[in-house]
């Protein structure tokens, strides 16, 4: 199997697995307990927290461990909306982890302003600046789109929010594997969400990170772990794994690996010669959203039958194909939107795998063209 769906989830990084394994066997203590095993666990957790903070330019006290990316986003958004209904601003790019949380707020009487996206897949910063107003509970801009891979103007968004004294939440779940994240250099009450499984780590662990966590209110209640913002016995193995995954993906060797990935991606795009969503903007290094003239899920299946895993850009739910809202916001024609195929490379992707995809593509393209032409 040639795996080119790293944006969906990443293959476990052996280094990360090695680091976390002891915590799934002997070092199982509960960090809240005073005995030796518990004290050891507390020390290991503190170290992991410090590692996570260091990788993202934050203070250890500004790291809240969560049960994954979606929970991190929910804690960061809903944790600012616990009082009387007010107003929030979200970019049109947001992942459902943010967008559905915003929908939920809207159902409860909140005003939700959607900041538009430009044709190149970037947030319309001017419009965002006009939408964000003092008193807004939170504004959300993802670091890079999980659909197109387009990197967003975070510095500008943070400056706008800081100027209006509005907290900014950045969903960096997709971005953490492909760009430097430094929450300490952004002004204002910033929070940032990450998840381990996009980085070679396991499912079920993520974090909200940044100075903004200090002003969040809890959305779940229990034993008061994680500053009361995420009650529940800490996932120590997960925390260790997340710290190690971030150390690798955000570390000193990361830029060279990202460059290699970007070069493979660029080579692929050039050889397939298909339109690419957001191709004119700066994108995550291994990310390509190819706009084919076929149906995305048909291409995915044909490639799957050739042992190549990619994903479709739009999902068809029970006979009602939903055009991807991000592509719709970019003004991409429905015909191409439904033909979108997401190819995402990872650190393990090789040039041979890209060659294999190009060969498979040539094989299926002819048949798909014949089928499409004969359909009318």
């Amino acid at each position, binding site marked *: 199997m040639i795996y080119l769906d790293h944006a969906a989830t990443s293959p476990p990084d052996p280094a990360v697995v090695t680091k976390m394994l002891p915590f799934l066997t002997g070092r199982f203590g509960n960090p809240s307990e005073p005995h030796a095993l518990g004290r050891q666990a507390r020390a290991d957790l503190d170290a992991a927290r410090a590692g996570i903070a260091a990788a993202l330019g934050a203070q250890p006290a500004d790291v809240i461990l969560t049960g994954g990316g979606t929970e991190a986003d929910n804690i960061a958004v809903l944790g600012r909306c616990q009082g009387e209904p007010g107003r929030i601003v979200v970019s049109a790019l947001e992942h459902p982890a943010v967008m559905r949380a915003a929908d939920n707020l809207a159902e409860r009487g909140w005003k939700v302003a959607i900041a538009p996206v430009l044709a190149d897949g970037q947030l319309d910063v001017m419009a965002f600046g006009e939408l964000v107003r003092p008193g807004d509970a939170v504004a959300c801009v993802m670091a890079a789109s999980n659909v197109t891979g387009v990197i967003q103007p975070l510095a500008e968004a943070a400056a706008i929010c800081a100027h209006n004294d509005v907290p900014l939440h950045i969903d960096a779940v997709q971005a953490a594997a492909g760009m430097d994240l430094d929450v300490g250099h952004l002004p204002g009450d910033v929070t940032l969400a990450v998840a381990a499984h996009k980085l070679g780590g396991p499912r079920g662990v993520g974090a909200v990170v940044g100075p903004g966590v200090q002003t969040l209110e809890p959305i779940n209640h229990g034993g008061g772990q994680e500053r009361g913002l995420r009650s529940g016995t800490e996932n120590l193995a997960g925390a260790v794994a997340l710290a190690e995954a971030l150390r690798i993906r955000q570390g000193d060797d990361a830029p060279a690996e990202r460059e290699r990935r970007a070069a493979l991606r660029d080579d692929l795009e050039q050889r397939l010669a298909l339109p690419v969503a957001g191709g004119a903007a700066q994108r995550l290094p291994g990310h390509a959203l190819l706009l084919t003239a076929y*149906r995305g899920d*048909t291409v*995915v*299946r044909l490639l799957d039958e050739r042992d190549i895993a990619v994903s479709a850009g739009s999902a068809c739910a029970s*006979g*009602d194909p939903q055009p991807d809202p991000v592509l719709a916001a970019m003004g991409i024609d429905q015909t191409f939107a439904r033909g979108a195929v997401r190819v995402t490379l990872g650190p393990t992707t090789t040039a041979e795998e890209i060659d294999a995809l190009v060969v498979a593509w040539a094989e299926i393209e002819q048949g798909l063209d*014949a089928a499409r032409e004969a*359909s*009318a």
Partner: protein
Amino acid sequence: MIDLSRAGSIDQPDGAGSAGGGRCDDRVRFTLRLAGERLAEVRFGADACASTTAAAAWLAEAAEGSGLLDAARLGLTDVLAGTTIDSPECALTAVDALHAALGDAVVRGASIAADPHRVGIAMSGGVDSAMVLTSAVEEGHEAVGLTLRLWIDPDAPNPERACCAPSAVRAARDLCHAKGMPHFMLDLREDFRAAVVEPFVAGYAAGETPNPCATCNGAFRFDAIDAIATALGCSEWRTGHYARLVERDGALLVARGADPDKDQSAMLALVDPAILARVRLPLGERIKRDVVAEAGAKGLAAAKAPESQEVCFLGGGELAPFLERQGVELVPGPIVDEQGVELGTHHGAVAFTPGQRRGLGVSRGTDALYVLKVDALSNTVVVATLERLGRREVELRDVRLRVPCDRVGASFRVRAEPIPAALAAHADGTATLVLDRDAFQVAPGQVAALYDGDCIVAAGVVAG
């Protein structure tokens, strides 16, 4: 594995058919080349999701090389057994397209050698034809389901209530396939429009009250099914009408069905006797209630299908909006009495029919008023009290005399009690009926079924 090697289309095919274009905009098209009774080549086109494309590719492979009848046995169950598909409803688009192409091949003239054990079954998707099919199979026949696709009006209030709606076609096909039998869907929409709907609309526009079912059976449907059943080598064909066929003096006559509440003999009044010779009506001796109960006991899904008795192409709606959809302009005009006194306004004279009381909304003292006459030219509806509607003499045109007769029972509506009458047929195909008592709801364009006892001995159309 989706095999794309049969993707493409055949130039000048012997059969072609498409389906899709609904909400998800999936489109599938099949083209076929025949060598005798065999599908020598099958090609498919698909602009569709993975499930639909996989189903189309699989069906092309399965159908290629098989006989026409075996290809017509292929259905959703086979697709689901033969390939991996996430969404069966998507695969249906591919099945529909293949069957459209098979039906097209038959309409274009494909034929099969005759077989004395093969019978055609005219199927609407309802309970009656389901039972006719079932009994033919139980008798050991190879039963070939034949469903005509006659009308699609997406703007009708309830398009699925048309007798040949896509869901009805699929129900008929599913039943045939469940019994291991072939099914053909024959798209005769253009012919139906020309032969039945346009005369119906023109008749109304001229102020007449045409009877589309009798006209359809007499001048279109039976002819079409008979030709197709013959081409498919059927020794006879069966339909689920509640009527019987009786031989008298060497002539084959349509007679009343045994179920007085369901008798459909009048609908067959105009059918050519030469065609009737190849038709069987297995439900003629049955009571509808029993048929439904038996269908239920046999577990036929059609036992629960809603019964459609209205004109099939109205699609669950009223006449006036249908006529408007067909381009008949409805202009408000006067409702007058016989003396010309204006009593009210109508929304379009041609949507009214003599004898009608409903929808008039006018009164004269305490008299109940009925439509006496519709004058399309002056867009006027003339109303009168019921006794003024009475007629003793009715002129007929397009008269079919099945056996010599001069005394008949005249029926102008399905299951109406016949009125004894004297019939004088003229050499030019017209006839004069002199009724023993008044008929109150006789309108130009209606079909008059003329009975002797239970048998229809003559029929004609009420002249203007």
